């Protein structure tokens, strides 16, 4: 099968998974205790019961829980409504993010904030990948040397450090050294952000924390993979041929170690995404993670539904990309 056919098949495969995830989230919301309408109108003050009932009915119709004749809408009908809205990229309006008393459209909020998350994640992902490769190669080629031992211990300590606490410590150190905590402020995000020097200044600390978080995970992997491969016979052959150690490592050993590394990194992507939520919260970075946590703290159901559809979608796209890179890494793999 051709590569194009494989990619099309994988893209189509995303659809049932996303449908399953939305169905799971939808069911969870439905079986959870508490009436969402009461949570929604919690702030409305009414003198009389009639006023309260009118507000309740208005909101319930608004939310699609009751139809215009005040009959309860069955759950599957609401789910079909949700999916048909999803196809039109309409996530409804937020309860927490409001402007002039009206909830803002969630699609708009997400399109404004998704780029911050994507920039932060891509920068730190590639930084950690590069650093992990460098550290892994240094450790594996000089096994049991001073550098290997100290790097291994540092990776172990970093692996045991809770990511959110690492972010806090980075903040503390930066505050004492540079009098700069890295907590995002308003002027950091004036458009266009890519030409804004302030933006890069505030990007440094969150990206550093997230890089270390991914680095400690990947470097151990690269080291153990390389060590296993350096013991193989064809490495000895390559050395015996008189190749210099640089080309032995990068042309013979590293390329063969890439496949298992990519596999494990691909399967650990949700963990990295979860880590980015923590980092965003600590540094007040206005990405999707902060949006999601605000929505969760203020019980903004439509917003949580939207972010819980976006996160698996991003993850599935990322996993698709890792699967496609297999073809370029390992020529034996044919689709």
């Amino acid at each position: 099968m051709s590569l194009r056919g494989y990619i099309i098949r994988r893209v189509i495969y995303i659809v049932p998974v996303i449908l399953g995830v939305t169905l799971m989230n939808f069911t969870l919301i439905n079986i959870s205790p508490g009436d969402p309408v009461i949570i929604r109108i919690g702030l409305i003050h009414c003198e009389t019961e009639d006023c309260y009932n009118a507000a309740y009915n208005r909101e319930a119709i608004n939310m699609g829980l009751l139809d215009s004749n005040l009959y309860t809408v069955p759950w599957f009908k609401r789910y079909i409504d949700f999916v048909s809205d999803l196809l039109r990229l309409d996530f409804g309006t937020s309860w927490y993010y409001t402007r002039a008393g009206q909830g803002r459209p969630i699609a708009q909020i997400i399109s404004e904030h998704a780029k911050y998350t994507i920039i932060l994640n891509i920068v730190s992902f590639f930084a950690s990948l590069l650093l992990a490769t460098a550290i892994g190669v240094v450790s594996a080629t000089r096994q049991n040397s001073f550098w290997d031992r100290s790097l291994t211990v540092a990776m172990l300590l970093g692996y045991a450090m809770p990511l959110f606490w690492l972010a806090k410590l980075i903040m503390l150190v930066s505050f004492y050294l540079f009098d700069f905590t890295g907590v995002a402020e308003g002027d950091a995000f004036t458009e266009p952000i890519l030409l804004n020097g302030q933006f890069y200044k505030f990007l440094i600390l969150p990206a550093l924390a997230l890089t270390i978080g991914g680095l400690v995970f990947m470097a151990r992997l690269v080291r153990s993979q390389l060590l296993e491969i350096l013991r193989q016979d064809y490495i000895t052959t390559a050395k015996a041929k008189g190749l210099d150690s640089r080309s032995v490592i990068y042309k013979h050993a590293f390329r063969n170690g890439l496949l298992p590394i990519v596999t494990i990194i691909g399967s650990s992507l949700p963990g990295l995404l979860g880590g980015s939520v923590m980092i965003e919260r600590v540094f007040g970075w206005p990405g999707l993670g902060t949006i999601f946590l605000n929505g969760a703290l203020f019980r903004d159901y439509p917003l949580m539904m939207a972010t819980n559809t976006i996160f698996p979608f991003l993850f599935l796209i990322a996993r698709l990309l890792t699967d496609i890179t297999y073809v370029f890494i390992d020529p034996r793999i044919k689709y």
Partner: protein
Amino acid sequence: MATIENIETDEFILDEKTLREIETMKGANQWSIVWRRIKKDKMGMLGLYIVTFLILMAFVSWILLQLDEWLTHAGLLYGDPNLISSLNNLYVELWIPGVSKSNPIVLFNHPTYQFADQVKLPPSFIHPFGTDANGQDMLSRVFFGATNSLALGFIGQMTTVIIGTVLGSIAGFYGGIIDDILQRVIELLYSMPQFILMIFIIVLFEDIQVPGGKYAVVVIFFALIGWGGTALIIRSNFFSLKEQDFVEAERALGASDMRIIFKHILPNSLAPLIIIVTLGIAGTIFLFAALAFFGFGDATIVSWGDDLNKWQDQLLEYPWMPMFPALFIFFTVLGFNLFGDSLRDALDPRLKD
């Protein structure tokens, strides 16, 4: 004249140490071999010491608290630890010879006891970890917080492993449509970051009334969504083991499915299970601490994560308040990781790097 023995010793030069080792390994069962391997690994032993120390600390603090509660209920003690102005029933004193007996050093207090006049004190001789903004001794908070922090991680991990083992065994043994359904469900559960899914569920179910408070909800749902990894490993183990001859032989003898699963295949899958539990506890403790840190824990109980959440914004001004709970979370995760890695290498030397 060269005898056969001489020729052999010429070819295989074994030093005395290796010979002695081979001698002791003879007839030893698997667990004593594993124990010998762990004992050789310095990092693994360090992890084991940390883990043992923390578990002992959790047990001692739990017993002290239970004893205090029991004595208060029995009417032998009159203080109520939940009242700020009340007597302080539980305390562990340290008396150094030569110092007056009337003013001993109090090592541990009841974790909710408040020193009204000793607020936000930096670490000192009397309060080695300082006091927090409520006037509570941080050393006592950390000491008594060990129970909840470790117990939650342990219970959470054990439940996921039990659910994962049962489902993975069924799917691996019977295969077919059960296996397909299980794989699709795992795919769904794992397409969401676990941290995000947990927050989503906690927010939805925070009003639910279950005995055990908020953390019971956390543990129940953690078990319901976290079993996928264990199930996949057990499933693949079953797939490779059920085709083996000893299973065929047992089946030919007329053994039931249950007997084959519980008496033959599961004991052979014990090594990966032990590794999952040890390494998983570290991850679970980290996840629960992260949930507490971001405000989805239960502020009414004493645990490291909730203390960390309470004082996280004081880091710049009063660094000792959040630092010590965080340090203990760090040591716990480190200990379990070190010990788990060493256990993995010892149980399955092929995986060793």
